[in-house]
């Protein structure tokens, strides 16, 4: 029996006590001595030129230290490549305070530095700036004919595969056909914590930037390249992050501004954005999608065509995989996928939870529901008839795929077999129309290169470090579990530290790859410690492990013991003490086994079942029940993983029912840029949610067998709700969010 088995257990968060007591320090909470405060001034126009900044007027106020703008920013790196971060798409990255040009509404145009927060805010409110406005374009609707195929995308973006079969002819000849356009507006991540950076001036040109980011290494590279700093000069730290959802993948402008000010003023500076300014960078792009589906007489898909057009900025080509999923989720021989961008006078869109897939799966899965009804089939039965046994985009088998189990287990839990197929056929005891809908999705199981360091000390305590991130996903906890189990130590004896560029490199926290990437590095480094331990153990007087190899032993319950005779064991703490060494310290890294993975397509899947209740008179919709069945390989921690999927369902409800950033095209500005008018669910909006983790073994994706669960849970949720609303009301809505006016 092992008491040090932690992987797969519902372990409570190891950072929980710090978070519930307020002891966890977020980036804008490092109160360093002699700190000045910066307040960002945002452009009220969407496009034009800054003609005059009356900085002298506010500099006359006692306590105002400086006003930074393009007029006094020192000469910085010149080439675009210096401003490109790990996640940058093609194009020229935005350079804050670079010149007098305004490229988007709320562009930072000045930074006011003062001795106190109150004074910085006041001074920024009275700073006069004059602009010359130019005509802006902010409507994707006006750009329908100006779409272009991006030739350059960010890492991980794949252009759609070429067409297969004869998609046009097959659609023409199909027995049943549907075609429709699906639309959603811009959405903003809106993590609870606003972006903020505290730059601590360490003297002699050295800084420590406590920065809200999903990648401390990414930010460090960005700062060193722009400001000409060495890595030693620019340490970047982020121990806790109040939510990211993709918004922190790229370095945001407050870290640039705070660093600039600290270097120029040679003192510590904090810059925090306002909630309004949280709408000034990066969003899920407003997207128009067009689908054509056709079926054969037996209910199999004859043709599938999916085209997407979404916005990007004038200066970068933001790309995400919107349509590719449609070529692999269902078996179909005749497929045509198209993907285009259109340039607008907005900031570059930014990956937002399950970028591309959340929106692509909305359109595809609503279209699939329409197709099922057109063909007279149950929506679940229709999907199972068209189950893809291999990835037709890549012409490769899946490393593992348990989507069928997701369908069956989800349907059983939900009670799908009790469903009456006819729309508007079900009611509850209060006369509410009841609708049941379902949908699903697919997401990449990926892994990046990552490194970790482990130190085992003579007191039996293990410290593992990696420059990874924790934005609520449970990184601290799952890494502690992996380390403790690998070396057979009690979890209390293990500390995992992250979010510091002094630690070994880790990738940005995104793409659902942290568990796979950093987890494997942690496993590897602990195994390396184990090898050294075994060497010492074999040298002990009368060692029962004499002659044993790593394969012969296991690390459990604080001991190294023979697999074939567990009574032959040594205590790990005794090994170090007998060795005379004060500690064992080692580094290790992990990267994907490309050779092993090449023949396979590696993905996670899910199936979502939703119940809505609609008031027939008022059109109000309540999402009363959701079952989300997920197949994502091995689940490291059933407690934190379940929470991630619960959160994904809340995100899906939000996407379906509430979220939309509304642009006033007259001003080229988002009008609902605050938490009161940009709606997200509150507690009263959320009802029963069930999460099922379908068992799935996969030794190809990575040694841990994990696929990641940050994004997959969101897929299909908005579509399942939209389909449920159709089932309840008979009204097909194809534009999110599902405001009640669309049902009246």
């Amino acid at each position, binding site marked *: 029996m092992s008491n040090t088995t932690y992987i797969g257990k519902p372990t409570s968060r190891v950072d929980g006590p710090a978070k*519930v007591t307020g002891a*966890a320090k977020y980036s804008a909470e490092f109160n360093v001595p002699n700190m000045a405060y910066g307040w960002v001034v945002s452009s009220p126009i969407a496009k034009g030129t800054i003609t005059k900044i009356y900085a002298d007027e506010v500099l006359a106020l006692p306590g105002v230290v400086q006003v930074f703008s393009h007029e006094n920013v020192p000469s910085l790196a010149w080439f675009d490549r210096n401003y490109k971060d790990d996640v940058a798409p093609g194009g020229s990255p935005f350079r804050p305070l670079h010149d007098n040009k305004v490229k988007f509404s709320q562009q930072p145009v000045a930074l006011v530095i003062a001795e106190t927060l109150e004074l910085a805010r*006041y001074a*920024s409110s009275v700073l006069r700036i004059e602009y010359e406005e130019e005509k802006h374009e902010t409507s994707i609707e006006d750009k329908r004919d100006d779409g272009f195929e991006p030739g350059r995308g960010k890492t991980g973006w794949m252009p759609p595969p070429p067409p297969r079969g004869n998609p046009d002819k097959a659609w023409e000849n199909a027995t049943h056909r549907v075609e429709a356009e699906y639309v959603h507006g811009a959405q903003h991540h809106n*993590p609870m914590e606003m972006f903020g950076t505290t730059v601590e001036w360490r003297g002699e040109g050295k800084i420590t930037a406590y920065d809200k980011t999903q990648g401390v290494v990414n930010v460090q590279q960005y700062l060193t390249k722009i400001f000409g700093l060495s890595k030693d000069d620019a340490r970047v730290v982020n121990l806790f992050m109040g939510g990211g959802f993709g918004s922190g993948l790229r370095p945001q402008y407050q870290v640039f501004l705070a660093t600039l000010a600290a270097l120029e003023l040679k003192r510590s500076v904090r810059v*925090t954005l306002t*909630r*309004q300014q949280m709408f000034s960078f990066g969003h899920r792009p407003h997207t128009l999608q067009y689908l054509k589906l056709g079926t054969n007489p037996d209910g199999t898909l004859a043709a599938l065509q999916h085209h997407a057009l979404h916005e990007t900025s004038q200066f970068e080509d933001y790309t995400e995989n919107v349509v590719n999923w449609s070529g692999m989720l269902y078996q179909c021989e005749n497929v045509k996928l198209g993907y285009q961008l259109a340039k607008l006078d907005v900031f570059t869109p930014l990956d937002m939870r399950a970028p591309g897939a959340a929106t692509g799966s909305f359109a595809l899965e609503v279209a699939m529901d329409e197709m099922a009804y057109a063909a007279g089939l149950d929506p679940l039965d229709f999907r199972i008839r068209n189950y893809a046994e291999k990835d037709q985009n890549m012409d490769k088998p899946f490393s593992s795929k348990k989507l069928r189990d997701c369908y069956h287990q989800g349907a059983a839990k939900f009670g799908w077999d009790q469903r009456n197929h006819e729309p508007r056929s079900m009611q509850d005891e209060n006369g509410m129309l009841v609708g049941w809908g379902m949908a699903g999705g697919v997401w990449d199981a990926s892994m990046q290169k990552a490194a970790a360091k482990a130190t085992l000390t003579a007191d039996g305590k293990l410290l593992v470090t990696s420059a990874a991130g924790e934005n609520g996903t449970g990184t601290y906890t799952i890494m502690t579990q992996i380390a403790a189990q690998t070396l057979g130590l009690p979890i209390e004896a293990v500390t995992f530290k992250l979010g510091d560029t002094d630690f070994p490199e880790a990738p940005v926290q995104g793409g659902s790859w942290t568990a796979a990437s950093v987890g494997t590095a942690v496993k590897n480094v602990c195994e390396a410690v184990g090898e050294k331990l075994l060497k010492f153990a074999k040298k002990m007087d009368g060692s029962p492990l004499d002659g044993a190899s790593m394969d012969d032993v296991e690390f459990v319950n604080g001991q190294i013991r023979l697999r074939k005779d567990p009574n032959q064991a040594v205590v790990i703490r005794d090994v170090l003490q007998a060795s005379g060494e004060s500690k064992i310290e080692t580094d290790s890294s992990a990267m994907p086994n490309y050779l092993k993975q090449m023949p396979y397509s590696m993905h996670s899947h899910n199936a979502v079942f939703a119940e809505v209740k609609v008031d027939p008179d008022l059109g109000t919709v309540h999402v009363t029940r959701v079952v989300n069945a997920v197949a994502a390989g091995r689940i490291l921690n059933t407690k934190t993983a379940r*929470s991630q999927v619960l959160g994904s369902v809340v995100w899906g409800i939000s996407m379906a029912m509430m979220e939309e950033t509304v642009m006033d095209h007259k001003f080229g500005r988002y009008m609902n840029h605050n938490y009161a008018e940009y709606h997200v669910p509150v507690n009263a909006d959320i009802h029963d949610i069930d999460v099922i983790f379908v068992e799935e073994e996969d030794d190809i994706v990575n040694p841990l067998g994990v696929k990641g669960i940050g994004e997959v849970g969101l897929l299909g949720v908005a579509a399942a709700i939209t389909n449920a609303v159709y089932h309840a009301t008979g009204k097909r809505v194809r534009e999110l969010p599902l405001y009640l006016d669309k049902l009246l």
Partner: protein
Amino acid sequence: MLHQSTKAPGEAVAAPPPTGTVRLTINGQQRELQIAPWTTLLDALREYLDLTGTKKGCDHGQCGACTVLVNGKRINSCLTLAVMQEDAEITTIEGLGTQENLHPLQQAFIDHDAFQCGYCTPGQICSAQGLINEGKAHTEAEIRELMSGNICRCGAYTNILAAVKEVVDAKTA
């Protein structure tokens, strides 16, 4: 925030009023501050007293992350000035419990995994204590409704409900 000054050209920028002394009672301790009179209670806590457990999520009373207890009543600390609370007993998350000695709500939040990023959590817990003090919420529907002033963007609502319900039930049992 879109800044565009309405001041007439040539007119000197008005200097703000001077700072003043503000005395607060926080978590049972007397604290004295020299701050601008328009400093919010939230900024006083975070920027002057190093009590950063109280969070700023919007600064406009829209999200509830800054919830603290004033004389046992939950309020948004971003919507009150520090100087207005001189005679009050203020309790922040730091005053409810410590990592070594957790408050029952803090323990319940950990047990039910009622948070992910943790940024709304101090506000949720202070709000839940305020809700218990009010004595109005007993059913799940009532707790959901009366905890709806606190946004959780990670979407931990069902777990927050379970955590709060457990403590509410224990109080009334």
